[in-house]
């Protein structure tokens, strides 16, 4: 069965491109527009990986990951944070929250695929 990836980003184009890229590589995709929306997607379904932006309206990526890590079903789910260059502090916050992997924005679709394949296989 294909692995499922949850993409959380307020930018529709990022969701679309990352989604297309990963679908092309054989992953299943679920997406959410912000942290709050993403929590509703964690409804017991199997999520093998989460890709989340940090800066989002309603609920930012770090609060979202913190909440996710309190859910027993998802506490081991790996998270890739989408960070910006020069925001080391943000990266540290993310890592403290449990998001150990990151991809620096702006990125090429291939870079995303590369990061994902380090963590899970299709």
């Amino acid at each position, binding site marked *: 069965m294909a692995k499922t990836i949850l993409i959380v980003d307020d930018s529709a*184009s990022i969701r679309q491109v*990352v989604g297309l*890229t990963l679908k092309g590589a054989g992953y299943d995709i679920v997406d959410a527009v912000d942290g*709050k929306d993403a929590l509703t997607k964690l409804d017991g379904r199997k999520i093998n990986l989460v890709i989340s932006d940090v800066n989002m309206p309603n609920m930012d990526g770090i609060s979202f990951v913190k909440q996710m890590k309190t859910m027993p*079903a998802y506490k081991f789910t790996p998270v890739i944070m989408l960070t910006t260059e020069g925001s080391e502090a943000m990266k540290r916050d993310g*890592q403290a929250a449990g998001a150990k992997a990151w991809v620096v924005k*702006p*990125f*090429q679709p291939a870079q995303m695929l590369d990061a994902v394949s380090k963590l899970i296989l299709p």
Partner: protein
Amino acid sequence: MSLDLGEALQTFFAESRGLLQDMEESLLRLESESDDAESINAVFRAAHTIKGSSGMFGLDAIVAFTHKVENLLDQVRNGAVPLKEGMIGLLLACRDHIERLLDFAAAGEEMDADARTHGEALTAQLSQCLGKSATVPAEAVSPLESAGGRPMAGDTWHISLRFGQDVLKNGMDPLSFLRYLGTLGEICHLATLADALPAAAEMDPECCYLGFELCLKSDVDKARIEAVFEFVRDDCDLHILPPGSKQADYLRLIAALPEDNARLGELLVASGAMTARELEMILTAQESAGASQATQKPLGEILVERQIVQPELVNAALSKQKDARNRQAQEAKFIRVHADKLDHLINLVGELVISGAGVGLQAARNKDATLMESVSGMARLVEDIRDGAMRLRMVEIGETFNRFRRVVRDVSKEIGKDIELVIEGEGTELDKTVVDKIGDPLTHLMRNAMDHGIEPAELRASRGKPVKGTLKLNAYHESGGIVIEVSDDGGGLNRERILAKAREKGLIPDDGGNLSDAEVWKLIFEAGFSTAEQVSNLSGRGVGMDVVRRNIEALRGTVDIESHAGLGSIFRIRLPLTLAIIDGFLMGVGDGHYVVPLDMVQECLELDPARSEQRDYINLRGEVLPLLRVKEHFGLGGRAGRRENVVVVNSAGRKAGLVVDELKGEFQAVIKPLAAMFAKVRGVTGSTILGSGEVALVLEVPALLTEAARKLAA
């Protein structure tokens, strides 16, 4: 990678334009409340998202520029750089530049020299605001040094890996890293070290206790190999020896690793000589049978344990998650739909209405009672579907109004008048098509009001008015239509000046001094009319108010003016709520059919043929009601009806009676545009198809009202 990004690119453009809009609104809000943290954040987020997305599409010019804007915004957000007024102007200019870059990208063009210089100028100003010290490097700095050269052919890398106990808890699976490593080259040997594994009783199944020693045959460089373990680097002890390393390097490695030296020594020294090649050969020979399977096993066991843990915990988590989901469901959700799909739906609904009317007609002809009953049930549903479909196209006018904040800000700066924009009724909804088309006429009216309406500050002061001029945009619903008002508190229209100008242009005869105010105001909508004594570069460019009127009339709307000398003027635009389908009132004249919008019909009367004064007007409960004979107006022949009826119509406070032969009742009219050859026919705006397949013309009530009033006066 060959991906079809075309569609995603369109999403990107639409999204970025939306973000730029938000950015502008927030910037303008910041102008009045410079410490509004949420607005600063919103501006930052817009720039941040545009940069992030454009990078994905390789739009490097946009990335580079927004990056600089984002830097400044980041500093402002952190409080490192104070937000000064000039900075908002600069950020607005940057916003416009990003929009321009987007336009270039959308057209698939390189930016031209002009844009490039402009961008450079803005960049310079941005860095000035930022100060040199605060710049953030544009390229991601690799935290790892890229030591070590290219490997010699045939040799292997030696990698020592000790994963931290928390890697699994962090969602990192050592196995996937090893598999990924396998994509860089060939892992020709792998030994698993289970030395750290505690006794079973003390073992935490969620922890990782394993270490790995492996040989990788690959021609990538050291940085690539290190990058594989980028995400676990904080959680893992990683040593990489390049191919052909010296014996001393291995000894240092042994000293650095946590395991018992003898055990590692056994592993490495047992290979005899310390070259990587011999090490590999011997290790492979020694352990090839058992080791590779044994290697997989402990990991496999851990994975199995994880699989067992999870289903049990899922149940416990489930109720909690359900709560969260129910809460979410109550919040409004939006779906972004392509406008074409909605248009297609509206067209289909239009066709459904027509064919439904056809079925109704058949049922009535056949006098089939049960069929008629089902048809009327269906007709009700069709009507609901129609209303629902039309509502899908309804958008709030607020977004259009908010765009004018920028226009007012820029124009008032440019012409040196202090003008405030007040917006009301932004929640009023109307058809998307109308919203799209009303922007231009509104812009023109606004500029006109700012340029000619609102007086210069000194004049205002001498008239005892507040120095700051006020411009107001308002929208509200009124009898099946929407009214948009542009009002200013300026000097009002100048009757004498308009009359003089109109005489000069030959629009009215020289003695036309007895026109009513409303008639005089209307003159400014005549083609080629411009009263501005000095032509500024804003309004009065020749494309005058007649274009405004034509644009509004093309939307089946009207515009009228209320003006009071010294107090200001109000331009009132009345528009139908929708352009596609209306509730109409069907009438028969001669052999033809005509429709008027139902909400303009006030009442119907029978015309008494015995009373001869009823030629041009009737007495309607003490009021003079001008009559317009539709048959004469359109020069129709055809048989005379047994008796004539009067349909009293009303628009913008004016009334008239349309004399027709037959009243046919309510009718849902799907309005189709008329071909250009009908452009000269006054009093008709469109056509519609009846259930029988015949064509009916949709009457333009405002034009007919004017005509009736004119006839009565003559």
